């Protein structure tokens, strides 16, 4: 079946090999957008988080067929004209990564949080970061980056 959606601002069309093909496989295998990572396949780890119509979802549980007409954003779509998105810059500024495999998930989760809630409290940041596993950092620097991201987003006039 053929589905159409907007991907990182551009129109996209994909022939699904199967009606229940998962979005993560469409992104990684059909469109070769490998920035979105596959961590567990059951929606638990958050590594595959993308933003659909402004809300974060686990692309490993998202049936691509449900994305007809949707606005999908992945980590590849964040930077504009070679300039990093403020959230990406925040993760760099705070050394908020080690192995990095969870970082696209955290970055997307953070973007969706701050677009919705431009000045999140520490508690709201903790609750949001809580939904994406990180095996390396113990989340300290990651939560620092969420805070920094809110400040940079404000500065950049993105919220």
């Amino acid at each position, binding site marked *: 079946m053929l589905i159409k959606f907007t991907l990182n601002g551009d129109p996209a069309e994909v022939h699904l090999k199967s009606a229940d093909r998962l979005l993560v496989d469409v992104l990684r295998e059909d469109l070769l957008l490998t920035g979105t990572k596959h961590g567990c396949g059951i929606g638990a780890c958050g590594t595959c988080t993308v933003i659909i119509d402004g809300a974060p979802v686990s692309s490993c*549980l998202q049936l691509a067929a449900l994305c007809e007409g949707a606005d999908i954003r992945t980590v590849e779509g964040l930077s504009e004209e070679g300039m990093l998105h403020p959230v990406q810059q925040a993760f760099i500024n705070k*050394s908020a990564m080690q192995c990095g495999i969870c970082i696209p998930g955290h970055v997307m989760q953070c973007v969706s949080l701050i677009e919705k809630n431009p000045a999140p409290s520490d508690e709201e940041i*903790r609750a949001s970061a*809580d939904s994406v596993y990180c*095996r390396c950092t*113990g989340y300290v620097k990651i939560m620092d980056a969420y805070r920094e991201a809110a400040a940079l987003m404000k500065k950049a006039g993105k919220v």
Partner: protein
Amino acid sequence: MNSRDPRLKDPKFDAGLLVVGQDVPRTDALPKVTGAAQYVADLHMPGMLHAAVLRSPHPNARIVSIDTSAARAMPGVKAVITGEDTAKCKWGAFRPDLYPLAIGRVRYVGDEIAAVAATDAETARAAIDKIVVQYEVLPAVFTLDEAMAAGAPLVHDDAPGNIAHEFAFERGEVDAGFKASDVIVEGTWELIRQWHSSLETIGCVAHWSNNRVTMWCNTQTPFLARGRYAVALGVPEAQVRVIQTEVGGGFGGKSGDDNCSVIAALLARKAGRPVKLIHTREEEFLASHPRMPMRYWVRLGFAKSGKVLAKEIRMWADNGAYTGKSQAILGAATVRHDALYKYPNARAKSTLLYTNLVPTGAFRGFGNPSADWAVEQAWDLAAEKLGIDIVDLLRMNAVEEGDVSPHNHKVTSCELRQCIDKAAELIDWKNKQKNKKPDTGFGMGCSVHVNGRRSFGDWDGSSAIVRINEDGRATIITGEGEIGQGTLTVLRQIAAEELGLPYDDIDITRPDTDVHPHSLGALASRVTYVAGNAVKRAAAEAHKQLINAASEQFKKPVDELTIINGQIGPKNGAESDFKPVSAVVRANIYKRGGEAIVGVGNWDNPSEFPDHSRFGNESGAYNFAAQAIEVEVDRGTGQVKLKEIAAVVDCGTVIHPSAAQGQVEGAVTQGIGLAMTEYFDWHNGMPTDPQYIDYTLPSADFVPKIHVGFADSYEPSGPFGAKGLGEIGLDAVPAAIANAIADAVGVRIHELPITAEKIHRALHPELYADEKQTPPAAPKTSVWTRLATGTPSGTRPFKPEWLQPATVEEAVQRYAEGNTAILSGGMAHALRRERNGYPLAKRLLHVGRIPEMLKAGINSDGALHTGAAVKQQVLHEMAGLRERWTALAEAFDAAGHDRVRQMTTVGGSLGPLIGGFDMPVAMLAFDSTLTMVSASGRRTVSLAEAFEKRFTKDEMIVCVDIKAVPPRSGSAFHKFLPRGVMETPTVNAAACVTLDVKGACVAVRLVVGAVSWKPIVLQLKALHGTQFDEAAIRAAVQPVHGLAQPMVNVRGSAQYKRNMAVEIGARMVIAAWQRAKK
């Protein structure tokens, strides 16, 4: 700058360090935040095939026959291999006992039997299901006791008694030491398997060309992996090239003991095309090499003063079915701790036993967490018996610079006392102990670690090349590799500092065994210390060559020249006297007989290769750490709340402060996971659910405030005074937590994991007096279903049809046609497909775009209406919902996080009528009515009745209506999750209480979920007409105990769940009542 740096005392040393000690931007940051970093699963090559592996479903069996003909005949299948296609070479780091694919015998559930490469992953998996294996199932050994028992079945025929390795030592006069002791403590402690759980699983892309194989691996140790993979493949090492991809977490789990990469290479050879093989998350649990569990008996003797006089240990370790690095881990767990305190006498015997379980291996800490789990708790017992504060006792016995352990560990730099003091200070230990709050406790633990270890022969060195290029930049050529710990950044800092070039002007290579000098890679906390020294030497050599070239060009003696910030010129010269480095390098090349600037640096750890009894100075330097922890225990549930943790590390000079903090923060968090969250249920030698459902990692909310500190320290043999720090932050965390729990409520935990149930049992034995043992049911989920149906990989023989009706009536009609599954958010279907391997039906009926089913709002009469296809997130954000139906809002909070609420719908949460789902439990606390539709029309039914009578086969839910809550009502919901938000509940409960104007109770409804196949709903009539009385509420809730019929699983025994059903139920009635009063 480190105040202990001896150069500070040197008047000539005035510049200080410019790059070392600075938080420069991480080398790997940019590609990691943009998604550009190439991990092994991201590689795509022309003609690349995808692979899948058939694994043993039996813990011990003889393979009678394997028939691969049906798999080979499938279209798209390009190679099928079994043990017969291998060189039949056993391999392993120390004791070769593992075949790449089974030869005649399997020894654990997960053992590799056959593999397929096909044009896509689905075909490869489907082909796996077509391979027919006949087994003769043999008796298996699952525990240390079973493995040791007389006449036990042998895991390997050449290992009598199932002993894989054994060693013993006695240093000093142990018996005399105990004889002289005033206080003796002893005990036995046990550890469990912990998985690395890197969010990137193990994987490899392999390709043969010109009779050589190139393996793109996410390995931590490319050169060691190359050597072992060559043995496994039965080819000379020269035929194998390993290239390290980005590594998505290692922690020891990617240190070249896996069959995954070997199988990828074997398939690629047979198919003649590149092959990609990536572990699924489930395979990572079944067949990677988790932390080795140990049973650790320890006895310590002390003088009255607190001085330690003797130590004795007896240890048995569970190797699993194959050895990997486990015998070295056994060694570390036995001897290493003796370099932590001033033990004058020590005796040990350690035995490594084969079992029919997943093989164990290296994991951050490498045996030290097992030793610390036991011995650091024994120290805590001793402190109590001696009447000395643990902080003072550890301080008194801590090793110091210049000490030599009984095994000849030479302690060159040591600030353990500083670590202990700072850790206690950071959580305000002394003050808080004086004014201790009830059920709050403090615990401490210390640890020691090596900085590299002589393990793989008499060399623990590193070799590096530093080139200064004609463009003025320098390139570090090293095969050590980044696994996320910051290698690339730290080595660039060291080179920049040594060369006098800006950090941004230093490049560094990624490992490729064809290109780089021999390197051992990321293990044993060695890279900063060992590779850092090699890079520093190479940079010094390049620096020397550059200065010599400049000397010739400037016509000045070398000692009058200096390099500052990429410019060369005379010391104390004006800015205009300086030339860029690029000009000097270029001029040195472009002349007759010119030369490039290339420095080579070799550095071997100044350590000794230990003898068979592990005597010998394993490492040139040792790092130290202390952890102090504050906990609070909930006596009603046994749940432990970690309040604060301080971790202070002596790692010498800190080269990159934020990366160093990150190492410690991450290690502490893994230590918390080992202690409290990471465990499974087991059945017949395998986890009942090898996924992140039962096995949960600490998530952000579970991790307490972590204070990280570094001791002021300088290691003379380290680069700029630095030592390693990758592992040490983990080692003593579980023991420190256990010590704090003992301090808080007097419960001493001996066996990991620390669960709320263990603490609850110890605190309330009376609640378990009438306990009847309920045996756990055979597992029914995920991999078990697939094994039972003979489709272990779980692919489907068909592609489902997609139906998207526009109206409810159309949907009903399509549904009535049969073989159709309703789908709205799609999560249940995706999960079932992923986990069980079969879809709900051949036709998927997507009702998520039917307008009637998407309506939601609060009506003018104050009632809530929601269509079945409405997402939970919509209700979660609905204005006015929380004030009216607080319990429902709290159930949405408890759903986990916004991604779950965004993907789950009202109908999806109600449809399966599952007794543990949060939303239905909360809805049952109110008057909730479902509207159902089928071919025979519509009907309404109360939610409670729906749970009693279920739905008919052709019915579907259209909407839910919840009546307005009466005035003076309050409600509350709680999901009891001892291990954090990612878990399914032990118990969830909701209550709604309505009072009259005088505050007397009019109605109480209590719902308790997750302890029966349907939620328990009680109207607590005994409380009607009464005023608030906690004891009366608790008495009224008591019947829940008898009504609960909980399943026994990883979340608790039946009796614990019954007790929690009562406890959480009572708490909800109390909370709802208090809200009603307002």
